[in-house]
């Protein structure tokens, strides 16, 4: 059957069958190889980190403070610091991102210059290197907002004008904003126009349509966006290098104006600036394992939620 079709059509299938079959096999083979390479590398990394980290990995390791100049003990403060930062970050970024996405899909007209500018900004935010957010956090939040706030309300006493967990979280929320916007926007776009039109035709206003028809249909997108943002934020270190992460703290952060320890930052300093890199190797691998478990399990949760909602929608 295929040969007859080939004879009938000229342009696309003018190539001879034999050579095109070989070419096809090569192409499919190459694509397959690429997939398996990625998956293999991923599991190798995972395997090595689990293998090296398993020795030290225990409940005690997770729930105790580092001791003896960070060459022994656990990572409890780093874990808690990361959690607090991620929560504050989500509180700032998720509503902001969702609303921006709603604007872009529901309110902005095709020809709107303003919407085009917003879109462009969001895409730019996505490609701005994470270290720039760190510089921005330092220049804007700490030097400008924080110091300004201190001068105005604290009588010049230094409280907000220095690196702390709030500025780090807000910096991180800027970084993760495009992640949320993009995935919410994508989800909003998948909602069929007919649904919106049906709602409008039944007499609902635009806002009612958004609230009752569009948003419920895009919960999966918001969820996915949030979880992706959280797992990105939990692992990102560059933006908090100089906006709040601390080398070592003996206590947990008590308020938003305290510095905090962070898992990713902890890995970085342990691997590069520890007094004894060789000796602390098991700790480093175990810390990496904890961070990986955290981010990967978040990802798995995201996937599960997404598929469950999709099944429901069907």
């Amino acid at each position: 059957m295929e040969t007859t079709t080939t004879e009938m059509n000229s342009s696309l299938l003018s190539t001879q069958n034999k050579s095109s079959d070989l070419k096809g096999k090569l192409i499919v083979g190459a694509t397959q190889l690429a997939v398996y390479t990625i998956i293999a590398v991923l599991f190798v990394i995972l395997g090595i980190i689990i293998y090296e980290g398993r020795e030290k990995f225990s409940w005690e390791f997770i729930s105790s403070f580092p001791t003896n100049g960070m060459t022994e003990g656990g990572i409890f403060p780093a874990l808690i610091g990361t959690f607090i930062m991620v929560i504050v970050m989500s509180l700032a970024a998720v509503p902001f991102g969702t609303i921006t996405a709603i604007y872009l899909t529901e309110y902005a007209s095709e020809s709107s210059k303003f919407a085009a500018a917003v879109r462009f900004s969001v895409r730019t935010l996505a490609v701005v290197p994470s270290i720039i957010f760190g510089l921005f956090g330092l220049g804007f939040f700490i030097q400008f907002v924080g110091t300004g706030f201190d001068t105005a309300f604290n009588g010049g006493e230094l409280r907000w004008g220095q690196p702390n967990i709030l500025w780090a979280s807000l910096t991180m929320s800027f970084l993760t904003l495009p992640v949320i916007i993009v995935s919410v926007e994508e989800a909003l776009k998948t909602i069929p126009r007919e649904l919106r039109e049906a709602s409008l035709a039944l007499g609902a206003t635009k806002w009612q349509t958004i609230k009752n028809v569009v948003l419920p249909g895009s919960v999966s997108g918001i969820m996915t966006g949030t979880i992706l943002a959280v797992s990105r934020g939990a692992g990102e270190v560059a933006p908090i290098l100089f906006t709040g992460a601390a080398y070592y703290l003996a206590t947990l952060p008590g308020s938003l104006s305290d510095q905090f320890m962070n898992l990713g930052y902890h890995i970085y300093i342990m691997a590069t600036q520890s007094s004894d890199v060789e000796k602390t190797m098991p700790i480093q691998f175990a810390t990496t394992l904890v961070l990986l478990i955290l981010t990967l399990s978040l990802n798995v949760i995201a996937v599960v939620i997404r598929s469950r909602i999709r099944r429901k929608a069907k």
Partner: protein
Amino acid sequence: MSSPISSKQNFTKESLEKQFRLSEFLAEKIISSVAFLSIAIIFLIFIFVFKESLPIFSLGKESAKVEMQQSVSASGDQPESYGGVETEDLQPESYGGVETEDLQPESYGGVETEDLQPETYGGVEKEDLQPESYGGVEKEDLQPESYGGVEKEDLQPETYGDVQAEPLVENNDSAEDTAKEKKSNSIWDTLLTPDWVPVSENPRFGLLSLLIGTLKVTIISMLIAGPIAILAALYTSCFASKRTKEIIKPIIEMLAAFPSVVIGFFALMVMATFFQDIFGYDSRLNAFVGGVAMALAAIPIIYTISEDALSSIPKTYTEASLALGANKWQTAFYVVLPAATPGIFAALLLGVGRVFGETMIALMATGNAALMSANPFESVRTFAATIGAEMAETVFGETHYSVLFFIGSLLFIFSFGLNALAEFYVKGKLIKKFQGK
């Protein structure tokens, strides 16, 4: 739901007109003003990053004048502003500490021109430095970097903590440098040299070697990540069965959940040794290791976006092609792939943006030595890593601080331009496509 409309109400001309509702009006206004914030953020980022780098522009013009007047105080000032930082520079958080405790009083408040100038630019003139240049193997003009030479001997074997090691190197340097100190004309002469020796008695802020390092790492990683990710995306969207697709896609996207610090750590601890055993090069941490590690960070981005682009091609395209008798692979290669080109291009650009500004992997896996060389197996220092490594040691208001912010502005402008390019390219392509149909 099923009741006929006509039974409920009659439409008049007025009732069909759009009515003003306060809640609707407010909702729209609030939503669009929140959307406006993302534009504002871009401006804020640029303004506040650039603002901190402004001092270097004014410094450049006046430096010669001030230096003449204050040539004596030049040497006196330096220990003050540097000493505190250097002793503490093992602690990355020292930024906060330093600023609050001892440095603010002297560094803030428009004293820049007096205090900071003398230490800033001096003796980057080529004649002076050439004698100490090492080897001069490849390019005569570009070689005069004493830094590279020293770094190679002392640091290369285990360049874990460049932050720790640097002051040592620079102190060796500075003894020679002071003897040959000469004043250069402006900051631009300094920025366009290969020397990156920010912490010394005679600091030099040449960006060329950093640029070379960044480009090297970016090219290596994109050469690896680009083809692999796009091919994988093609397989997932065109060849894989629905079942396989549902397994493959989440797994590869899981790679995106690997934090860059984890990839950097893995590259530092495992990959570096592994590749050294295979290729047998000298420096354990180098551009190649960094590039491969960054490819791992870029692959999920490129994969996800190009897979989306490929999957969003309307089914009618594929069906039409298949109905015309094309194979699956012919459809994929000649119909789906070309149709998705703009999306794939955007994916690649996002990948470049990610790699170009990737900080943690560069900090941990590239060796952090500012060398001028085309060899992919030499250590490199990237722009982003420089900011990440050195910002903690600098003092608010000093030239080093401003130069780092200047590098930040450059990175920002680059990524902005990159994105603008992608935007216009993609849009142009789409318009063409629509006109063609």
